[in-house]
């Protein structure tokens, strides 16, 4: 087994391939989460505002339809559809297609996470902000969002972790992520199991580290709750 792992990891500097793949996985996940959070925040804000403002009925309907479609179809299919239809040109960057796909997919889930987090903030907070003369948007930025983040963060962190694992399918649209690197090495050495185990270990370690980081960040945000 040691010999097999040596062959799958050290020989011919193969660890460099994992490293490259690992970088790609992180980059893809990170950019996707940014895109997902940006779109998700906009959708959540529209949905939150639409409860009080009838003018937003149409945008609200569009947002609901968007969320329903994204959540109602497999991400695997969404990826191919985006790659083959929307990015149907020869010089498409696989990374860009991946970011768009996973960003859009994630945004639907993130939108609901953010909306629930905003709605969990006491209505009196918004009233207090408005009564001081702050506009609706200032109240959202300075009063509501900072408090909503505490509600949102655990679920959002989870979403990020899920996304890192979901990007493992991106090899199918030619993104050289860590899973793809592992299968490539499997092909080269005629032995799939060791590189796949190595890839799995990499995902596991990253997820563990992120979980720890998230926990300490949450504790820091909880500072104002102490008595």
């Amino acid at each position, binding site marked *: 087994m040691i010999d097999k792992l040596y062959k799958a990891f050290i020989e011919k500097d193969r660890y460099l391939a994992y490293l490259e793949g690992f970088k790609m996985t992180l980059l893809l996940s990170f950019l996707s989460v940014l895109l997902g959070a940006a779109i998700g925040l906009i959708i959540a804000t529209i949905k939150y505002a639409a409860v009080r403002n009838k003018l937003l009925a149409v945008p609200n309907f569009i947002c609901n339809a968007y969320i329903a479609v994204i959540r109602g179809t497999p991400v695997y299919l969404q990826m191919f559809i985006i790659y083959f239809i929307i990015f149907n040109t020869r010089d498409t960057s696989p990374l860009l297609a991946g970011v768009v796909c996973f960003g859009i997919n994630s945004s639907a889930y993130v939108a609901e996470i953010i909306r629930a987090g905003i709605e969990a903030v006491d209505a009196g907070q918004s009233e207090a902000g408005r009564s001081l*003369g702050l*506009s609706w948007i200032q109240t959202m930025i*300075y009063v509501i969002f900072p408090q909503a983040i505490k509600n949102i963060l655990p679920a959002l962190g989870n979403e990020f972790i899920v996304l890192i694992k979901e990007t493992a399918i991106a090899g199918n649209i030619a993104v050289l992520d860590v899973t793809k690197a592992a299968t490539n090495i499997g092909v080269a050495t005629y032995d799939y199991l060791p590189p796949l185990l190595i890839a799995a270990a990499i995902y596991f370690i990253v997820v563990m580290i992120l979980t720890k980081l998230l926990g300490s960040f949450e504790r820091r945000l909880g500072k104002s*709750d102490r008595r």
Partner: protein
Amino acid sequence: MIDVKGLNKYFGNHQVLNDINEHIDRGEKVVVVGPSGSGKSTFLRCLNLMETPTGGEIIFEGVSITSAKSKEADRIRQKMGMVFQHFNLFPHLTILGNITLAPIKLKLMTKAEAGQKAMELLKRVGLEDKAEAYPAQLSGGQKQRIAIVRSLAMNPDVMLFDEPTSALDPEMVGEVLELMRQLANDGMTMIVVTHEMGFAKEVASRVLFMDEGRIVEQNKPEIFFEQPKNKRLQDFLSKVL
């Protein structure tokens, strides 16, 4: 200063305010009393457009606020402080942050000016040592005094109080009423919804009695409490006094 003309408010089909006409002068201390569900809080919340009136007009310092655009409404609210039953301090900010947020973000003061003003106000209420504390570390009475200071930091022309002592432990009611008394003595225009009849007797220049969405009776406190004319008010006073 504030003119209310034919104010109506419906929640769905339920009429909460029924044709309210009222005039409030600068420097007046108006206390609004009445049974729960009589529309006192809604009346107060209509004055600074926390609730949008269904009908009627409210004129504040010569400007009709009921027809104001949202930007104007925001500017009008800067001049109308509001204190809530549940304090509604911002839990993610320090006391100093709570007080200075609006003046800084609305670009009325620099950070240094706002901080200085906040410390002056905190000294006045004897809570300057709490400037760096978070709201969760304060008692109810302290929170409400900070909430009042937060409103005062905006230099309002009128202060609206929505049952400011109703959520407090009995032993903390006094410190909040004392601060309100000071404010009244300093000449602040105040509209107070409260169940504290003692405060009404002592501080009010006028007491309004609301019942079923109408202002049924109003008078100077000595006459209001000693010679009530309306049957509902007589009943109400016999229960609360």
